[in-house]
């Protein structure tokens, strides 16, 4: 770090210190060389990202102004966007998508509740931690298919209902029941991940705080409200943002294997509708326009949510 200063001093002393001038020159090229090496090392990854992500995003915007099935195309300006905003189906699908948000408070509540219990080192907490996290490593197609098999008309849930003398229920024939099963799958599969993140926040709490609270006679609820909640604020923010993102962008796997969007369009989510428009109806332009609009909505949501939560945390 001090070498530039040393080199400078050397050159100021005068021409008698020829070595000083040499070393300055050498130093400069060394820094340049390091910069060049760093740049070259980062360049391949950057080029991959530009060509495989940035370029396609730009291309997606271009496609959204076209009427195209992938083979022929015609420029139609913002007609795709207008059509989407006017389409009753899109409104319906958007409302359906909002219904899936029900899973989020449940996931966060269960996640926080179990995280606190694990933090208090309940018997076998390490075992529980892995078990509850276990569904997070499974593919959505695995989870979706497990739930579909379980709730199918001749599946195990219905044979249990029959044994208890009840009528079997065709869960996937009614919109709200089908949504209920998907939400159940979301909760079953999702709460362990939130629990893990909240637990990592809890682990950073200074235990002296609890000792002090105990001296002050604060009960369990007070300690929960005034120590635990404030110290996992950042994790709560992260968990709510990531779950919202997930609900708007990553339900495809569940819907694809569980309901295929049906009955009719009653369980079609926004991301599934993009897939349907582009690859079933072969309307790539409208599919792209819809994808870009979803992206805009979730970007705004994420910014708003993180602003709101940041303000709240600052208070």
């Amino acid at each position, binding site marked *: 770090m001090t070498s530039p200063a040393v080199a400078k001093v050397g050159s100021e002393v005068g021409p008698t210190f020829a070595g000083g001038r040499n070393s300055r020159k050498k130093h400069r090229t060394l820094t340049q060389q390091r910069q060049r090496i760093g*740049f070259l090392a980062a360049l391949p990854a950057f080029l991959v*990202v530009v060509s495989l992500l940035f370029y396609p995003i730009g291309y997606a915007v271009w496609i959204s102004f076209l009427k195209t099935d992938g083979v022929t195309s015609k420029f139609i300006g913002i007609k795709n966007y207008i059509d989407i905003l006017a389409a009753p189906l899109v409104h319906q699908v958007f409302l359906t998508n909002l219904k899936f948000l029900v899973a989020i408070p449940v996931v966060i509540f269960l996640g926080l509740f179990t995280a606190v219990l694990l933090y208090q080192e309940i018997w076998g907490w390490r075992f529980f931690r892995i078990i509850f996290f276990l569904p997070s490593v499974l593919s959505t197609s695995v989870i979706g298919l497990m739930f579909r*098999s379980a709730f199918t008309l001749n599946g195990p849930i219905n044979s249990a209902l029959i044994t208890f003398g009840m009528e079997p229920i065709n869960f996937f024939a009614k919109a709200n029941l089908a949504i209920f099963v998907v939400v159940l799958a979301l909760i079953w599969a999702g709460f362990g991940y939130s629990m893990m993140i909240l637990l990592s926040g809890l682990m950073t709490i200074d235990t002296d705080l609890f000792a002090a609270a105990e001296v002050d006679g604060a009960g369990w609820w007070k300690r929960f409200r005034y120590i635990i909640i404030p110290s996992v604020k950042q994790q709560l923010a992260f968990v709510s943002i990531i779950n919202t993102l997930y609900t708007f962008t990553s339900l495809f796997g569940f819907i694809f*294997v569980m309901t295929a969007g049906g009955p009719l369009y009653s369980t079609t989510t926004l991301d599934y509708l*993009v897939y349907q428009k582009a690859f079933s109806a072969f309307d790539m332009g409208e599919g792209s326009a819809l994808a870009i609009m979803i992206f805009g909505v979730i970007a705004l949501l994420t910014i708003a949510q993180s602003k709101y939560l940041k303000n709240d945390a600052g208070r």
Partner: protein
Amino acid sequence: MRKFSLRVNFLIFFALLSAAITTLYPLIYVVTTSARTLEDYNKNAYGIPSFFTLESYRILIDNYSLGTAARNTITVVGISLLTALIFASFAGFALAKYDFPGSKVMNWSFIAVMLLPSQILIIPIYLLLSKFGLIGHLPGLMFVYIGTNIPFGVFFLKSVFSAVPDTILDAARIDGAGFFRSFFKVAVPNAAAGIVTLAVLQFLGMWNELLYAYLILPDQGQRLLTPALASIGGRYTTNQPLVAAALCITAAPTLILLAMSSKYLVRGVSTGIGTS
């Protein structure tokens, strides 16, 4: 706050245990179902099977080319993961330890596309790949997995390499180590745990992916496991043992990985939140 009384501990333990059973039981049920015959299953779905058979697995491999699907998945995930890790670790190391003009722009560009949803990419990527004749070929999907996994990889490894002390890197440089020697002999061994963590996370992401795999490799001979599973599950609802066996084949590697690397996963999941 930390510890409960014995009685409370006992009660909560059993509450959590029943919750754990609702998580584990479906998995155990799937495993046992996969090893039953269809007749045996139809007689009593919950009964204890009279004998175990691997018949469903044999049918899947012989008639539904699930063995090929497994091999394709291993090929695609293996090559993509290795390539993404190499690119991301060079970039992460450079961004963490080499200050060069343009590093800010590069860093920003990786973060900007880190949480990009796949539905915005799938249409342009599909059209581009079909233009190059890569739809239906494994390398097409590899490109997608490499591209989509690099941004988070760089972000993650930049913070991992930042934690490697400058002093040991400087010492190596004074000993005449160039970029590659500093990287492989000093940086990588010191960041090994972080690299393994990332590898586990990205392996799971690639192995479990469905949308790209389904659309980019549509032919049965080139299919990966998750789309194969989805189509078997969609067509054979009346043959539960067969579906269960397909579920087991798809899920087993991820569960084995969880068992082997839970330490890394626990840490990996909670990294990256500090910046949110």
